[in-house]
């Protein structure tokens, strides 16, 4: 009885992500006992945990898009980091009106944001067209923008880092008025809520899963597989655009080389850590969100252990390999085979 209960818990979808998150948090508490301490300094919340939640915001937003793309197409969009850079470049370039550094907007912020989101939607649509319409493997298709994207962003900003030294622009990555909670957290929460509501209030979630599991069958029951896959890439692009604007607001500039750098890996990792199968099909949005916070907590921990930013990918790559190995059918079969042998041995012993 107890055993089956335990099994039920361990086989639950969110078991892996939650355990990972707890493990990372525990590690932190042991290393830095004041990890969960939250205080108010200079009128804003302050503390390790706040920092983790704040810094994870862009990743959470990306992970949502990545989850949808993964579920529908069975592949990942590795261009999200580059799309962030494009969106940031477009936004800042419009705001600065072409100058390197400005102290006030040269154009309306609304136009800038809309243009940035349109640009990122366009990037998403490009990826979506290649994947959904031309049936190109998602990773190969998005590899194009992965490499060209930052080049495009450089062209947009004429190869310079464009600074927008305007307080209202800094708000998205900083604080709004006297609110003590960092704004990016709101961005993340609102994005999660909106996507969650869309999935809840429409049948999109079911459509995406159906297309991801069996595209042929999905078509015969009246779903437009091509359209749905395409849509997930556009959504993923737009979300990357939002993340890009937040990221550029943090540093009140568009740095085409560094905005969203290596984030595609984190986003994929978040999806995998969230218990989602990278081959597509059923997905859990919440799992990916938990996965994203776990990754950020891990990153912060590594920073605390004096690991440099450039070196982080090593550890993340190892985690990715471990997760995909655990997810792989061959490995599962191998483990199942071991278990079967063991149980046979036990039975034999009893006789």
């Amino acid at each position: 009885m107890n055993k089956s209960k335990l099994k039920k818990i361990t086989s639950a979808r969110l078991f892996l992500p939650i355990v990972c998150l707890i493990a990372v948090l525990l590690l932190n508490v042991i290393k830095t006992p004041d990890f969960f301490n939250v205080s108010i300094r200079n009128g804003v919340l302050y503390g390790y945990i706040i920092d983790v939640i704040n810094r994870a915001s862009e990743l959470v937003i990306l992970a949502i898009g990545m989850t949808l793309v993964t579920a529908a197409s069975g592949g990942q969009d590795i261009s999200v980091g580059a799309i962030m850079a494009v969106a940031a470049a477009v936004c800042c370039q419009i705001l600065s009106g072409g100058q390197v550094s400005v102290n006030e907007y040269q154009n309306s912020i609304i136009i800038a944001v809309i243009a940035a989101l349109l640009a990122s939607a366009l990037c998403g649509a490009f990826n979506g067209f290649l994947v959904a319409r031309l049936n190109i493997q998602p990773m190969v298709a998005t590899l194009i923008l992965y490499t060209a994207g930052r080049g495009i962003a450089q062209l947009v900003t004429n190869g310079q880092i464009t600074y927008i030294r305007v307080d209202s622009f800094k708000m998205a990555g900083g604080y709004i008025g006297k609110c003590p909670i960092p704004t990016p957290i709101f961005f993340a929460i609102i994005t999660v809520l909106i996507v969650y509501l869309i999935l809840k209030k429409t049948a999109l979630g079911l459509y995406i899963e159906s297309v991801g599991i069996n595209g042929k069958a999905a078509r015969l029951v009246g779903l437009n597989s091509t359209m749905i896959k395409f849509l997930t890439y556009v959504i993923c692009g737009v979300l990357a655009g939002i993340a890009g604007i937040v990221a550029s607001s943090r540093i009140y500039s568009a740095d085409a080389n560094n905005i969203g750098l290596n984030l595609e890996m984190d986003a994929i990792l978040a999806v995998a850590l969230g218990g989602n199968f990278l081959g597509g099909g059923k997905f859990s949005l919440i799992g990916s969100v938990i996965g994203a916070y776990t990754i950020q907590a891990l990153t912060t921990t590594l920073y605390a252990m004096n690991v440099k930013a450039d070196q982080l990918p090593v550890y993340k790559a190892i985690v990715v390999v471990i997760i995909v190995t655990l997810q792989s059918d061959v490995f599962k079969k191998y483990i199942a085979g071991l278990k079967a042998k063991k149980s046979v041995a036990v039975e034999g012993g009893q006789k």
Partner: protein
Amino acid sequence: MEQNVVLEMRDISKNFTGVRALSHVDFTLRKGEIHALMGENGAGKSTLIKVLTGVHEFESGSIHMAGNSNAIVNHSPQEAQANGISTVYQEVNLCPNLTVAENLFIGREPRKMGMIDWKQMNERSGKLLESLDIHVPPTQMLEECSIAIQQMIAIARAVDMKCRVLILDEPTSSLDDDEVEKLFVLMRRLRDEGVGIIFVTHFLEQVYAVCDRITVLRNGELVGEYETKDLPRVMLVAKMMGKDFDDLADIKGEHKDKKKTKPEPVIEAKGISHKGTIKPFDLTINKGEVIGLTGLLGSGRSELVRAIYGADKAETGTLKVKGKEAKINSPLDAMKLGMAYLPEDRKAEGIIADLSVRENIIIALQAKRGMFHPLSKKEMEEAADKYIKLLQIKTASRETPIKSLSGGNQQKVILGRWLLTNPDYLILDEPTRGIDIGTKTEIQKLVLDLADQGMAVTFISSEVEEMLRTCSRMAVLRDGQKVGELEEDELSQSGVMKAIAGGDDK
């Protein structure tokens, strides 16, 4: 082992998760004979072949090959090949991007100083092909060859690897008559050279044209082994079908009388076609009528309904649905006009494996309603429960993933999916394939009930007697063309067979 015998399988049994697929089956193949392995779908032919070639393990029994005193057990097709057993499948297992010669010799290429000797390889291929009367240049890419040639190349590869047992698994399904004849010439030649050939096919004529002996299986059991010349065709059919036929023969009787009202056409197709699969056809389907589509595998049965349903978009012709002209670009259009389509390949095109029974049932209705009108949780659960009960679907719960259900129950879920959309026109493409006999009967009865309630149904099945039980009219297809219709009074085993064969009075 008796002389002349090249392969002997004794007392073979095999279970699939509790279902007995083969039960104490014996099979004997002699040197230099073509031996047909016959049986309905689900009789155990392919399981027996797979046991022999090492794709499946078997629980009990033994396999002996001539010249080897020990029983052999094959663990993989490669091992079977090493033991002299080669298989050519309907879907040719060759590499399209390589030349004919490479496909013949890959893995055992002739070499000179460690390098592949292309010249010698091409020469040897040329000789081999010539000796078997296959006319194709060895340097041609395989993808440029017709399926028939590809099949012969696969056979040539087997021959050159000194196979003693050659298994041909439905090799003729996608061949035209000329090509079949060429294949037969090749088969006879190999037989004369002493190869034992196991020929699996659905086509009775072909059996009588080329086979020396026939082994019949039914429901995983051996019915018997016969000399072809001693077994008249009618007897063969009777042996394949067994007594189940009588048990079910009268289910139609109960439904027969009511069908005298004026026909109300639901579907009127005129000149519909899809390039390469189905030539232009006309077809009218009336309310409350079960129309059967019959013809050999690959005759265009599935393709015809796919063109109507928009699964393969029709390129010519007009379609009227309930008297109104309709334009169908995609399955969704067809669904909105009240059509429903249960596809032939349940696994590849029917079930959405990881989704629950509930989701699999409601998905079509949901798609029809559109993304922005999601069914509520309650509606979904009610719908799922209703059809689980109505169709007696055996599942642990409505949230169980459909992939863990048995084939028959999966099929019922798909049926439930379509009934939920409340269609006027239901297309069933091989709804009973690979399903146990009990479920088969249930589905057949259901079809008749639905027709009584006024639904128009198109029923496709490879089993003629099943169609005779359910259909009130049949359209006959041959080579991607509709060649005629049989009215109710013409429906009989022999009538249908004759129509399928096409005027040939054999």
